[in-house]
């Protein structure tokens, strides 16, 4: 595994009728360590989704570079979007299998479905699933391809609190089974502290890096909401500019 170096000098959306040029990202440097879980925190509309799309290669119109050091292989990227984005005309299992790179067998998928409690639902069509279940399917799909880099774009918004907590726990559980680099976007600071090795704070557009903090709470203590809350309060009192973002 290798580090991923992100260096975006300029990303702008050209002027459209009615609105001028939108400068989305400027001079943003982020380094992701191998197997590191990084949470990007920033106000909504701060170009977080834009950044993920650049990394995923969905948008190539920008100045800068995104590369891995080491063996110079392009990372195998999985992307969990804000909405589950499952193909409604394919079953749960087919949705996952379609994303698998050729030659990968289905054992890992069986295991992931089992862990996520979806084994019974693999023959269902996504429209018959609840949002929480669809999100879990999208999570299985992302993990199933055994990525070196997993991008997650506020994947748990609009889930009710208990469901979100449960899916977060599942996420950490499967991630610990096979650690790989994760870039997780959120605007929920508590969620970020619960999940991340490191927090990266982004500014309002044109987006750039404001601040970085390592989360030093041990993983087993993060279920304790008081710990998370204490960390959050320390963070905000120490860095008033962060509270302005949230």
């Amino acid at each position, binding site marked *: 595994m290798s580090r991923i170096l992100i260096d975006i000098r300029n990303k702008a959306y050209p002027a459209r009728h009615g609105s001028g040029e939108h400068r989305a990202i400027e001079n943003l440097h982020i380094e992701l360590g191998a197997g590191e879980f990084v949470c990007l925190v920033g106000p909504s509309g701060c170009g977080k989704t834009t950044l993920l799309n650049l990394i995923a290669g969905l948008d190539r119109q920008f100045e800068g570079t995104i590369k891995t050091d080491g063996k110079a292989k392009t990372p195998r990227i999985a992307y969990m*979007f804000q909405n589950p984005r499952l193909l409604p005309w394919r079953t749960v299992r087919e949705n996952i299998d379609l994303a698998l790179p050729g030659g990968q067998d289905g054992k890992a998928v069986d295991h992931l479905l089992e862990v996520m409690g979806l084994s019974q639902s693999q023959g269902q069509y996504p429209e018959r699933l609840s949002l929480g279940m669809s999100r879990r399917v999208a999570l299985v799909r992302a993990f199933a391809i055994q990525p070196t880099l997993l991008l997650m774009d506020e994947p748990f918004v609009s889930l009710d609190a208990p469901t979100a907590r449960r899916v977060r726990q599942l996420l950490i559980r499967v991630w610990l089974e096979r650690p790989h680099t994760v870039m997780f976007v959120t605007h929920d600071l508590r969620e970020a502290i619960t999940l991340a090795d490191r927090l990266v704070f982004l500014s309002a557009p044109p987006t750039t890096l404001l601040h970085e903090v390592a989360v030093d709470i041990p993983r087993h203590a993060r279920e304790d909401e008081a710990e998370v809350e204490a960390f959050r309060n320390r963070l905000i009192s120490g860095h008033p500019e962060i509270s302005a973002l949230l």
Partner: protein
Amino acid sequence: MRSALQHPIFSSLLFLALWQSLALLLVSPALPTPCVVFHALYGEIVSGRLPYHLGITLARLLVSFVLAMGLGTLAGIFLGQHEKLDRFFDNWLVIFLNVPALVTIILCYVWFGLTEAAAITAVVANKLPNVVVTVREGARALDRDLLEMAQAYRFGRWKTLRHVIWPQLFPYLIGASRTGIALIWKIILVVELLGRSNGMGYQLHLFFQMFNVTGILAYTIAFVTVIQLIEALLLKPLDRHAKRWRR
């Protein structure tokens, strides 16, 4: 009793009964009774004339249908994805959509002679703009989110086409097929009537000249039956298959 009234057989029987009583009332060669018509139909089938002409027409239907759907789908997908070309060719489509079928048929026969190719071209030219417009709607409505997902997970061209694009276009293609068969069916008769020496249209033309209403009605029944069979045995099951994932 109420459910018996709603049964489709009842409404068909009622239709036949009305026809029968009207024919008995009028006693005119312009409206033979159902019995006479079915007898004539039987005679035409046994003599082999009806299967021959119906077969010819069905073959023409098949060829022109496949051509119109194939070309129309390609053009529709293309226009749906290229906004500038679409705007440029939009007027062309409107013109072709509004040229009366009869004009296209006459022009084809004048330009290409009274040939099989001219007949097929005339039918295809009539149907093509319809298919293009329908499929173009489908191609415009393609879900960007899913296309991005396919790109992020490196689906590649073939997988994307088969699993992401095709299922989204399928309902539009079925729609185009259903209206297409109904349209081609009607146009093909005119094409045959004007410039062919076989097929249903040609036969109807003969019956018309001989004022043989019985023959016309017998062929019509054969006609409607075949089309209903195509609809029920082919298009409806395809439609159901395409919608099986819906809630």
